[in-house]
């Protein structure tokens, strides 16, 4: 069995993060290229929404990512809180800006889709409001981390905020079921499968994997900077080729 604890040390994780970032960058570029091509040239025009529905190919992947990244962040923050591992808190910190951007994209594309289809950029619907709260949770986490000088205290405070905010994720996900929302219900679900045409679903899933690879790439690249900042007094950092130059 691979010893996962070996990679819980910043010194061993730093080069690994670099490798993961490089590989995911290529995967993201490739999948985005194919995904965008399919979004515009392969997927057929929708019989109801015409070409306007094509927003789905970024709206749904970014919305999924916004929730998924939050869960991963909360997981790492929780691990950091319980086991006092430095690296897991750094991971949570590295994911935050990407999660916030994904949430913003979901809200933005939602507004640009809502306007032509519903006639409004924004409505205070349960789905939209809970997603907006998610955006504020990300911003709040980033602000809180930035406001506390002591890294370890900032990690703990951030972790508590993230773990409390986790209740918002099921609220977002099930909001379309629990309340009578303007936002439509899930087109893709584990229980009922998909109500979309196969090619549209394939395109959307491809774009989801592309967003996934993108998020991994940027957050791994970002965590390397965070590791260097926090471990700057460590001997292994001063011996890195990029530091010695």
């Amino acid at each position, binding site marked *: 069995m691979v010893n996962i604890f070996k990679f819980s040390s910043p010194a061993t994780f730093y080069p690994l993060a670099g490798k993961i970032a490089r590989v995911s960058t290529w995967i993201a570029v490739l999948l985005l290229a194919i995904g965008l091509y399919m979004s*515009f040239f392969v997927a057929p*025009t929708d019989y109801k929404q*015409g*070409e*306007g529905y*094509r*927003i789905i190919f*970024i*709206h749904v992947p*970014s919305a999924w990512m916004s929730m998924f990244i939050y869960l991963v962040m909360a997981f790492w923050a929780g691990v950091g809180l319980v086991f006092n591992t430095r690296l897991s808190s750094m991971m949570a910190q590295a994911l935050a*800006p*990407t999660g916030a*951007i994904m949430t*913003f*994209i979901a809200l*933005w*594309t939602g507004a*640009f*889709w809502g*306007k*032509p289809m519903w006639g409004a950029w924004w409505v205070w619907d349960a789905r939209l409001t809970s997603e907006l709260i998610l955006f504020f949770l990300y911003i709040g986490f980033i602000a809180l981390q930035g406001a506390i000088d002591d890294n370890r205290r900032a990690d703990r405070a951030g972790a508590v905020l993230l773990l409390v905010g986790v209740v918002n994720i099921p609220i977002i996900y099930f909001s379309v079921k629990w309340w009578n929302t303007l936002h439509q219900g899930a087109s893709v679900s584990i229980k009922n499968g998909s109500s979309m045409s196969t090619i549209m679903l394939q395109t959307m899933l491809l774009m989801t994997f592309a967003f996934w690879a*993108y998020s991994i*790439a*940027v957050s791994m*690249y*970002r965590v*390397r*900077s965070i590791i*260097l*900042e926090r471990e*700057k007094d460590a001997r292994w*950092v*001063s011996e890195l080729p*990029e*530091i*010695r*130059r």
Partner: protein
Amino acid sequence: MKGSLSEFFAMGGYALYVWGSFGVTALLMIIEPIMVHQRRKAVISRISRLVRLKSEQKS
């Protein structure tokens, strides 16, 4: 294929909404990696200066 390019950009009347969505998304996904890259460059130059300073003090 007459006017197919302008037809493509018109998006069946949804041009503002489709390009407004894809455009801003593309912009953010270009800006974020640039910012991450700049942060890395800044961190590396700061820490290498710090390390050099420390080694000079020792010798």
